[in-house]
């Protein structure tokens, strides 16, 4: 693969929680402008994988390179400033703050007022539903709106790479579809690369270019999402009717 097009390269990532091994020798890479997905069952290590990229969880071994620079071991706030933001599992908006304040916190690292304004307008045009609810407390939003807010908040950090942890969690099929359409839109319009972690293998395979399958902390399969979708073991394990 062309090195210059590479955004992030993760090599040999191993993470333990005390005696529990959560990730084992994981290799994943993502190109600029790409959407990749990581699918797996409960406890496969998906969230751990994203938390390790953001610096919240420290890896025991391995390296994480962002545009050729190792970011493994940096504090989470440093990593955000390098252009990696995340929408955590369960969204975790600040419930007692207004929608506007939540978005402002997403832009905490920005010094440039014009950029902040541009991103704010971008978020509101991408998620018009937030526009009408700017003053409302985030805790009173519906699940889908909270997901949009969490994504908007992450976009406010001006990311090169956006990490999404189970965006479909707890949402109806219709809202899930809407969210995934917006994920594609963000990727297309702004060229933001996206790592999508999902239990909903259908949606993940449908909306990503490449997919990694995680089982018990190990990558057991990887490839073009279209090809993975047709694999028998995947159909049996993740797409079964």
């Amino acid at each position, binding site marked *: 693969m062309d090195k210059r097009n590479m955004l992030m390269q993760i090599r040999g990532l191993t993470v333990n929680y005390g005696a529990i091994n959560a990730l084992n020798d994981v290799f994943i890479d993502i190109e600029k402008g790409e959407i990749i997905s990581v699918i797996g069952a409960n406890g496969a290590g998906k969230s751990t994988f994203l938390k390790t990229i*953001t*610096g*919240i969880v420290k890896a025991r071994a391995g390296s994480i390179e962002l545009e050729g620079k190792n970011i493994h071991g940096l*504090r*989470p*706030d440093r990593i*955000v*400033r390098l252009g990696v*933001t*995340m929408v*955590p599992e369960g969204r*975790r908006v*600040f419930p*007692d*703050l207004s929608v506007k304040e939540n978005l*402002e*916190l*997403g832009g*905490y*690292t920005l010094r440039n007022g014009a950029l902040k304004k541009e991103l704010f307008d971008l978020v509101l045009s991408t998620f018009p539903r937030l526009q009408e609810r700017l003053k409302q407390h985030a805790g009173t939003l519906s699940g889908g709106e909270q997901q949009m807010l969490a994504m908007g*908040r*992450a976009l406010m*950090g001006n990311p090169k790479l956006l990490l999404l942890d189970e965006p479909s969690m707890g949402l109806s099929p219709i809202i899930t579809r809407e969210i995934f359409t917006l994920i594609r839109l963000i990727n297309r319009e702004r060229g933001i690369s996206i790592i999508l972690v999902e239990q909903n293998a259908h949606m993940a395979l449908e909306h990503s270019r490449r997919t990694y399958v995680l089982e018990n902390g190990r990558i057991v399969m990887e490839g073009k999402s279209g090809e993975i979708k047709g694999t028998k073991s995947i159909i049996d394990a993740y797409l079964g009717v």
Partner: protein
Amino acid sequence: MEITGYLLQQFINGLQLGAVYALIALGYTMVYGVLRLINFAHGDIFMLGAFIAYYLISKFAIPIYLVFIITMFCTAGVGYIIEKVAYKPLRGAPKISLLITAVGVSLFLEYFLSLNAIFTANYIGFPRPFEVVNYDLSLFTVTNIQILIFATTGVSLVLLYLLIYRTKQGKAMRAVSYDQEVAALMGINIDRTISFTFMVGAALAGVGGILYGIAYPQINVFMGVMPGIKSFIAAVLGGIGIIHGAVIGGFIIGISEVFVSAFLSSTFRDGVIFVILFLVLLLKPSGIFGKRIEKV
């Protein structure tokens, strides 16, 4: 008329004590907010504030506003060091380790400073920085000390409010107290925010120490123990982690204490505070303004 005047007078005295408790309670509640820790050494920072002011006033004849500023910087520095040395190495450790460490820091400060070479364990007379003046307002009197206490507390609260709700640093403090992990994902430096919160809390406790020294001019290395506990109860009463709860709680505790001394007996003045704690824990453990109970 007589009784109204007496009631009002006690109320003013209660506000005076309550203001000091409110200043201390803020530190407990803010530190709890960002670290989920009851910083038992906080009462001792209040004590340090009184001692630093004592030295500034008695050894250097400097204006009172400078006493406040220098003392606040000193206690903030001590707060910073305590956090760095004692609590920061324990990030991610079980809560109980932090709590035990806090008790250890408190005992260390009290007994180390009570050494004869340092502050000694004796009571020391706190020098009055100015002559006491009584203003007779017919129904009750106020002293210039009380005016100083109310003015200082008022200014401190306004500045704190502006800091927390109007500055970027304050926004970071609030975010960290809501959800530390997500705050980090917003690009907030968690350790720096925690340090800063300790410093602000310690500066306020320092102000409380000076005011207490001026109002009740006997100081001692153990003087922080009871006000510390009562202010902690004030913070719990208002809802731990909630800024305005600590202020209201502080005033309620101060007024209760003074009223019990005035109308019952000063023997019960400490006891009643524990009765309040008992009732809060029984009836509304999350405090007056608390919404949910945080797991510690």
